[in-house]
């Protein structure tokens, strides 16, 4: 059974949820791993949302997901079929389909939370923003790390004089991916916009540029030999407190990195780890001893997850017709950084690869 069709001009349910408030009807386009592991659990954990339609080009994927989560949702195979069945949708298809699917949904008056990256090119991203603007609908992007409560801790410390003059920003994100992937969606150059920088690194590129502003004088070294890169070192300059600060970022799919943002100042340093979203570690000199002080964000729900926080923000944005925290417009910068980085890329030195040159 499907939900009744709602007139698009009908006001959406009020933000002050009561038991009688009708839920926001959510559709999901793309029923792969990220939908089952992250989006659906966060939707189900968010009050006032109801999954009313699942869409996948392989209808079987949608049917199985529907059964696995006992959703009782309609099951369709093309995004256009969501029209009238949902108020908003999560787009979780491979990156090269983000633009066409999102634009299609927006044309059908459906607000979108699109998986990161926004698109495979800045040009496609701009078209998506135009489509959202002309429809007057929400377009959010899945950069959950912006919801980590330690972002505010970092901002508070930066606003104080605890660190002294900022000398360096370093960010790293890397690890060996485990699991099973039966299709070359994320590894084939023809099917994706890039490798570790584009797919995983963009989380930190977005977070760093959101926290610190524009990254200039961009450099990139990576290990691509015509295919996707699995290791990438991104460099550039940030402007913090009016001063130029070197920024280095490293990303890897072959080995584990420190998985943190680290800011070193003349007096102290601060570190926020990706795996500890509510904490920040301040390293400073106390009475001649190097100490680490752990700062903890307050008023964080015990069951906090960044995915759920973003889903709640998206639902509220749809309901209240206001911009989401991670608006499409605000994510264009990270896509621009990556596009520019790929233009200036150089080969990362890996002497164990080109061994014949040392023979």
């Amino acid at each position, binding site marked *: 059974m499907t939900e009744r069709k709602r007139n698009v001009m009908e006001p959406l349910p009020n933000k002050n949820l009561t038991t009688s408030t009708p839920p926001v009807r959510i559709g999901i386009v793309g029923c792969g791993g990220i939908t089952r592991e992250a989006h659906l659990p966060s939707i189900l954990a968010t009050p006032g949302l109801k999954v009313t339609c699942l869409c996948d080009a392989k209808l079987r994927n949608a049917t199985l997901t529907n059964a696995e989560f006992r959703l009782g949702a309609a099951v369709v195979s093309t995004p256009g079929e969501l029209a009238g069945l949902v108020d908003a949708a999560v787009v979780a298809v491979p990156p090269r389909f983000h633009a066409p699917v999102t634009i299609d949904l927006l044309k059908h008056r459906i607000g979108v939370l699109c998986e990161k990256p926004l698109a495979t090119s800045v040009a496609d991203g701009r078209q998506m923003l135009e489509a959202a603007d002309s429809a007057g609908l929400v377009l959010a992007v899945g950069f959950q790390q912006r919801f980590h409560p330690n972002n505010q801790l970092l901002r508070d410390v930066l606003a104080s004089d605890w660190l002294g003059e900022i000398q360096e920003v370093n960010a790293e994100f890397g690890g060996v*991916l*485990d*699991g*099973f*992937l*039966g*299709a*070359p*969606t*994320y*590894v*084939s*150059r023809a099917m994706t916009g890039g*490798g570790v920088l584009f797919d995983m690194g963009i989380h930190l590129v977005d977070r760093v540029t959101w926290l610190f502003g524009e990254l200039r004088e961009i450099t990139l070294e990576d*290990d*691509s*030999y*015509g*295919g*996707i*890169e*699995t290791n990438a070192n991104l460099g550039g300059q940030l402007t913090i407190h009016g001063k130029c600060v070197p920024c280095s970022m490293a990303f890897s*799919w*072959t*080995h*584990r*990195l420190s998985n943190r943002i680290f800011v070193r100042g003349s007096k102290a340093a601060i570190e926020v780890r990706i795996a500890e979203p509510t904490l920040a570690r301040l390293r400073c000199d106390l009475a001649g001893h190097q100490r680490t002080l752990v700062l903890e964000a307050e008023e964080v729900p015990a069951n906090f997850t960044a995915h759920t926080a973003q889903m709640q923000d998206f639902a509220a944005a749809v309901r209240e017709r206001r911009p989401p925290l991670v608006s499409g417009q605000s994510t264009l910068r990270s896509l621009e950084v990556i596009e520019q980085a790929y233009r200036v890329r150089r080969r990362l030195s*890996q*002497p*164990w*690869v*080109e*061994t*014949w040159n040392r*023979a």
Partner: protein
Amino acid sequence: MNNTPVKIVVTGATGFIGSRLCELLSLHYQLPYRACVRNYFRAFRIARLDPEMVTVDLLSPDSMDQAVAGCDTVIHLAHADDDRLGPAVTANVVRAAVQHKVRRFIHISSYAVHGLSPKPDCVTEDGPLVRRSGDTYCDSKAAEERIVWRAIHKNGLPAVILRPGIVYGPYSPFVLQVINSARRGVISLIDDGRGTCNAVFVDDVCGAIHAAIFNDHALGQAFFVNASHAVTWRDFIMTFGNLVTPSPRVEQFTTKEVEAAQHVSLVRENLQTLLGLVKSSDFHRQLGSVPVFRAIIGGVKRNLIKCLSEEKVLALKARNLSRPSPTAEARATPMPNLGRLSRETMTIEFSVARAAKTFDWSPAYDFTRGAAVTRSWLEFARLLK
């Protein structure tokens, strides 16, 4: 005759040797190839090269036929550590190669085909293949090689069989085993590491594969692929283990100690598994679904609780919760397993004389040089601290 292949199909392309072979095929040998992939999460390393990748189920005849179609050379690296699955995969790959009349079939075997304790006549490639050693890896590799020999003799498959030793280099599981152990603070030697380590640098294995593609003299034969000189296991383990900072502690074990520990651990494992089953709430639930057992279990539990004070019940529960799991205990004990015991107590140095004499290949790396290249990768991968 021009022996340059039209296209090579590589099975096991995302494994340790396969990934390095793909790098060399793309960047150095510059030969056209198709990489067989099952799990693309393992394909990141070769995806850097933008190779032709095909999704292949190595057990499916249709899938394998599609993979081999249009290729005249097969390099078969795939291996399943299962004495039925491995041979089944090889049988399917060989069948497809015969059906598609490939020009060359290169089978990557192992010296393990001679068993856990090869006899001295195995110093050359003519030693007998093991029938039933009890070791899954040895038995499956031997069974796979027999399938290839049968196809050589019955179907005229133009095959070359290569039997590498302990293949090391960047991403090598043998190296990572030592490094991971060293990072936990302890490395171990069996019989002071006096056993022979037939180490061969991964590029030398790829070099042998490359030579076998081009050299017709190698057809229908098996070859050991090793460095010119073997090292001891002490050399191998200490060289990599001592790269880690801080330096790990070295534990010494004798063959007898390892054997005894394995015997004890087998008995203990059986008992623990049985006890765990009896104690598990899942088992109780299943058993409790039978009404008569439900009544018995319920009665026993109620009577037991009646006999104990509330504090005692809580203390018992707390003890169960705080007890370390057997797995954690086992991890803390650096006792080598039987696989290591057999590998590291072997004293045979497998000769590469036949390979050197028959086809144009000789190892380019001695252990010092190979270890230096491996070290540069370990540093990059931040595995030395």
